[in-house]
């Protein structure tokens, strides 16, 4: 059941989507087909799927470790933006220089930026007991404004006709494509690799064990001498670092600069990815692909049946609703009525 319910949730979402979009006056079946199936049916769209799935998997991997420990960092979007800002800072400071060291320096700065942003909720939670849920989210709004401030002010491209955006990064500051002319940049394989490493750390190290115990049985963890404080710092800094890395990958990859359009909601979507992937790295990679499909599919449905862009967000939230709803099947064994109805609906 643990691994069956995500598939059930996807099926239920497709069914409910057909009905809801139909009721709203769109071509329901076609809309759902566009969102869920069409991106997979077009091989020329596959690289785009990977480009979208990479940052989602990276951020969700970090979040999932925290969620396992009951650390509710919901401000990954802010950490993602902070990472992009810090990395871009290095890029602008090294403008005109060249060398292979620049890109790694940017990535390091990105990670540190994300970690710094996540360190605030970690500090406030461990020092004063302030809920990390609210502080991490508030900081997202602050990060967005900071981005606006920078691209409209000190970081505005002096040759950019007064548009609010930074200079384009130089080739030395841009993630290379994995092959000539490909959409897929080096950040994507790195993101997948990092997800696998995170799984190893969680499954095979004492720190990983600690995180799991603190989440599952806080009392036992305290009795065993595991530090809740350390777990909070570890999970928040880890998640912040990965979100920051995803941010600078996105800035130095598809964007190639910072613009006010940079915050695209990956940090929020990654929360859905983490849950759909069962907080497990392999599941998260699959879930990131599913969410990437709905993202690309949402664009197809926009041109195909005129569904507004926002429908994608609603669709993705429905996915999480159905996942949380079907989770009841894991904790309870239903007798007769409920599973029969659930199957009929799917």
């Amino acid at each position, binding site marked *: 059941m643990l691994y069956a319910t995500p598939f059930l949730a996807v099926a239920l979402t497709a069914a409910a989507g057909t009905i809801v979009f139909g009721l709203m006056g769109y071509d329901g079946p076609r809309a759902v087909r566009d969102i869920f199936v069409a991106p997979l049916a077009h091989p020329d769209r596959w690289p785009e799927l990977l480009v979208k799935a990479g940052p989602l998997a990276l951020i969700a991997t970090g979040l999932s470790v925290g969620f396992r420990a009951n650390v*509710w960092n919901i401000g990954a979007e802010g950490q993602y933006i902070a990472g992009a800002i810090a990395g871009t800072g290095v890029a602008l400071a090294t403008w005109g220089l060249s060398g292979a060291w620049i890109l790694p320096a940017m990535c390091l700065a990105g990670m540190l930026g994300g970690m710094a942003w996540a360190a605030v909720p970690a500090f406030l939670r461990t020092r004063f007991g302030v809920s990390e849920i609210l502080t991490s989210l508030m900081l997202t709004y602050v990060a967005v404004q900071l981005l606006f*401030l920078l691209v409209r002010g000190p970081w505005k491209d002096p040759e950019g006709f007064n548009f609010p955006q930074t200079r384009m990064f130089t080739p030395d500051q841009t993630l290379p494509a994995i092959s000539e002319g490909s959409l897929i940049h080096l950040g994507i394989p790195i993101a997948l690799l990092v997800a696998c490493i995170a799984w190893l750390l969680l499954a095979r190290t004492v720190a990983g064990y600690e995180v799991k115990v603190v989440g599952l049985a806080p009392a036992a963890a305290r009795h065993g001498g595991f530090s809740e404080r350390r777990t909070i710092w570890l999970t928040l800094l880890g998640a912040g670092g990965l979100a920051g890395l995803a941010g600078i990958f996105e800035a130095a990859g598809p964007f190639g600069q910072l613009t006010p359009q940079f915050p695209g909601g990956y940090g929020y979507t990654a929360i859905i990815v983490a849950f759909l992937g069962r907080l497990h790295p392999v599941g998260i990679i699959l879930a990131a692909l599913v969410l990437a499909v709905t993202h690309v599919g949402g664009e197809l449905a926009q041109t195909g049946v005129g569904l507004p862009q*926002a429908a*994608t967000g*609603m669709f*993705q939230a429905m996915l999480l609703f159905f996942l949380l709803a079907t989770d009841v099947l894991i904790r309870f064994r239903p007798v007769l009525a409920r599973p029969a109805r659930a199957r009929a609906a799917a």
Partner: protein
Amino acid sequence: MSTALLVSFAMTVAMASTPILLASLGELVAEKAGVLNLGVEGMMLIGAVTGFAAAALTGSAYLGLLAAMLGGLLTSLIFAALTLGLSANQVATGLALTIFGVGASALIGAPFVGRTIERLGPLLPQALAGHPVLRVLFGYDLLVYLALGLTAVVAWWLRYTRPGLVLRAVGESDTSAHAIGYPVLAVRTGAVAFGGVLAGLAGAYFSLELTPMWADRLTAGRGWIALALVVFASWRPARLLAGAYLFGAVMTFELHAKAAGFALLPPEILAMLPYLATILVLTLISVRPGRVSTAAPACLGKAFSPA
């Protein structure tokens, strides 16, 4: 400062505070019953869009308010069905509700972007509010008074009535309340629904009065500030009122500073202020150890399944 400017400042504070007060009052009741609904922002957005759509279609802002209450109610019932019916994780479900609200409201609102409506407007006849000083007292729309009145009613109801006591019991110890025979899940569903109705109204206040129009993400994170305010108020309605008006003042300051072309701080910094202030305030009230943790309802956020 001239009288006119003072009056305008005071009135803007009251109006900026009203949606936060409404939303946080609803959330306070839900949390007092032991349910942490992080979907306030989503319910507010649904309320804002259904209210605006109904007002645009019928031409009546008051019918818009009704629609907003209904929209908020239905959205909160999704949350109740998942967390109370199927005992899903409350934090995750609340987040999903907000993501859902952002998407669904933009989808419903798409045909209404750019349309204008008749705003709610002052409740009392012009004669009462002719003088600027009287206007500070009598010049508001229905919701400003409703929010203040409801705060008093909720404070009294929670403290002095039997159903209020039952609600608090359910939030403090679900198993004991269940053992005595109180319907824990029914009480919680009612509390969540009340929160949904108020969040719907709070959202509609943006689209029907403050900025009478529809735009995506119209409520701009105020739902999260409402959530923080409940913690700030240590789950006490009177403090909620003070906190909401304090935040209203901070936001009005931002607005006036922007309008006056306040040169010292860039507008982006001013826009950060409410969020930074929230973090600061949450920290300050937590400095004395044990304060927040003892004030919070003991069963907040925990699933309960009667068996």
